[in-house]
């Protein structure tokens, strides 16, 4: 069993009346709600948290791409992955990923992923999402009806640019290039493992099965509601005669660990509320542009992740309901161990993506939950799926060939000592460690 510590990087400081006052956290959220000075602190706290997860033994560090929103502040996840490549040693860099239909030419993504793979010594997982409708259609203006076709073409071009030995010409419908000749080449040959994050479009099952990619279901409804999608995926895999290897499936789940079940509610309930009621407060008109989801998916009755239907389903849920219905797996290490084991087995999931910084959760709580999970939950679940080969994790350079960054010197420490950085325990700790 493998664990990726996944950061969404939300803006933690939306006003209390945000939901009443504004129609959407995405696309048209007023710019003046963002304070760059707080943003500075958040980015650094969040990178600290990912680096801490690396030290705690998580297998992967997850980042992803979103635009014009307070839900996740990574228009470019590659920038975050680049920062992590230098300051982490062990964990894989799971970039889930780049919305490849948005880049012209899409080989830009092939180039940046190759850079990350080379810098990190072969620790990259390359994620290719279609991207949410808010991001692709509304923020980046992509025509909904042709988004998927464009995505498939971008995919084919990127893969060819990684696998073709010689330079080639590309005469596509959306991209034409006379000379495709990718420099640098990735460390992982012919290319890094590919994970496809999906929100429940049926086409994505086929796409993953046909290409032997890992399917990562990124849901906010938790494992109980996610069962339908997992079943759909495994059904397609079986139909196509593919191995039912659990590592071919990733699943994102909110997880929050505390000393006891009661303490977990005290610690995390307000932050989950922030997550569901502010971070996911998306105007229904932006949730699903006409043509974004195919008629096939709509007819399969799969619920969108955001928008009116999704909000209605969550409305009025108490902490007890959220836990009961599996939106969040929370409680004492024992409770979390038991629920997670049940969830992972029933989903047949070998790559868990842990959402552990949720909504407004401050650094000290993130650290507590991350540490408790690493020490008291993770080791007890490692035995799951031991009989299967994980063919979807990076194959890095051997330790002897890994380049080490020069050690940092903290001469500036004296100057910044009195500098006000309130509350961010992790950054305080980083300074302390440097002394």
């Amino acid at each position: 069993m493998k664990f990726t510590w996944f950061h969404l990087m939300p803006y933690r400081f939306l006003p209390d009346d945000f939901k009443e006052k504004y129609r959407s956290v995405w696309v048209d959220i007023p710019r003046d709600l963002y304070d760059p000075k707080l943003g500075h602190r958040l980015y650094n706290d969040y990178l600290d948290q990912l680096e801490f997860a690396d030290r705690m033994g998580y297998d992967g560090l997850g980042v992803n791409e979103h635009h014009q929103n307070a839900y996740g502040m990574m228009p470019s996840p590659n920038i975050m992955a680049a920062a992590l490549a230098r300051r982490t040693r062990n964990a894989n860099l799971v970039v889930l990923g780049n919305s490849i239909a948005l880049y012209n030419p899409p080989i830009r993504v092939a180039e940046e992923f190759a850079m990350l793979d080379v810098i990190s010594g072969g620790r990259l997982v390359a994620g290719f999402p279609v991207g949410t409708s808010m991001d692709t259609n509304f923020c980046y203006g992509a025509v909904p009806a042709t988004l998927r076709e464009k995505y498939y073409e971008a995919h084919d071009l990127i893969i060819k640019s990684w696998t073709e030995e010689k330079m080639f010409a590309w005469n596509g419908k959306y991209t034409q290039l006379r000379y495709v000749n990718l420099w640098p080449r990735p460390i992982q040959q012919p290319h890094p493992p590919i994970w496809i994050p999906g929100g429940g479009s049926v086409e994505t099952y086929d796409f993953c099965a046909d290409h032997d990619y890992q399917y990562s279901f990124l849901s906010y409804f938790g494992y109980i509601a996610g069962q339908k999608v997992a079943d759909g995926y495994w059904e397609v895999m079986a139909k196509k005669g593919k191995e039912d290897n659990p590592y071919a499936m990733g699943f994102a789940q909110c997880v929050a660990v505390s000393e006891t079940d009661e303490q977990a509610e005290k610690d995390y309930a307000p932050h989950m509320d922030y997550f569901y009621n502010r971070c996911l407060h998306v105007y229904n008109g932006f949730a699903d542009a006409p043509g974004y989801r195919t008629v096939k998916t709509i007819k399969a009755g799969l619920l969108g992740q955001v928008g009116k239907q999704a909000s209605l389903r969550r409305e009025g849920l108490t902490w007890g309901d959220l836990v009961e219905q599996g939106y969040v797996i929370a409680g004492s290490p024992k409770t979390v161990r038991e629920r997670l084991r049940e969830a992972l087995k029933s989903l047949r999931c070998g790559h868990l993506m842990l959402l552990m910084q949720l909504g407004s959760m401050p650094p000290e709580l993130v650290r507590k939950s991350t540490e408790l999970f690493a020490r008291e939950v993770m080791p007890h679940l490692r035995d799951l799926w031991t009989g299967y080969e994980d063919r979807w994790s990076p194959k890095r350079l051997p330790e002897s060939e890994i380049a080490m960054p020069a050690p940092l010197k903290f001469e500036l420490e004296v100057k910044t000592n009195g500098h006000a950085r309130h509350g961010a325990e992790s950054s305080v700790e980083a300074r302390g460690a440097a002394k």
Partner: protein
Amino acid sequence: MKTVQNVANGKFSVEMEVVGNGAPLLYLHGAGGLTGMDPFLEELGRDFKVYAPHLPGFGESTGGEHIDDVLDAVLFYHQLMDELGIDSAYWVGHSMGGMLAAEAAAVDNSRVKKLVLTSAAGFWLDEHPIPDFFAAQLDELAQLLFHDPNSPIAKAFTAIPDDFKALEAMYVERVKRLAMASKFLWPIPDRGLKKRAYRIQAPTLLLWGESDKLIPPVYAGEFKKHIKNSREHLLKAAGHMPMYEQQEAFCSAVRNFLKG
């Protein structure tokens, strides 16, 4: 009368309303499509032979995958005319259909006797941004489309069916239609008509609802600047859907212009 026309050796199958007798009139619907309740077609049919094809992606028409942009759509309409044996026709285009009719005229004047553009898309003025109707919810849509959003006709347009099956069918149909419309209108309904509109020779009527909140009448003025032989006509107590909201005034303006 509903017909199905096979076009370009089966590349397209076109569902089409054909109504009345007289000189041929080609009606190009907007992004919302024909509704099945379009009495103004009958009314126009008293003086003209009205052909109202559903653009592929709308109604039962197929072949949408062969239409990616404005030129593809224009050539589709020209091919349809060829196969119907119509050399030249009156063209009436509404909203998105107005944009496509204007583009078709710019490509080939010989196919257009006269042109009526009503509440037409195709231009973009920074000072008068056209609201994003793709993102609009049904209640907002009623506000954008109608002079009187509480009128029975506005209510009928934006009603939400009670039973789930009908709701799903409506949703699927909306997705199909707007997915095609998005090829011409997303994210900004401007595909460069301003570069080509100078070519339009046909006498052109710019027929607008006075209280069109989606594409306000200032856009009629913009068309007038670009099309030399054009004039404006504003309809009272009408919004973006004048053929539904003020059927009589709409039809008589079209009739007078085309027969005058």
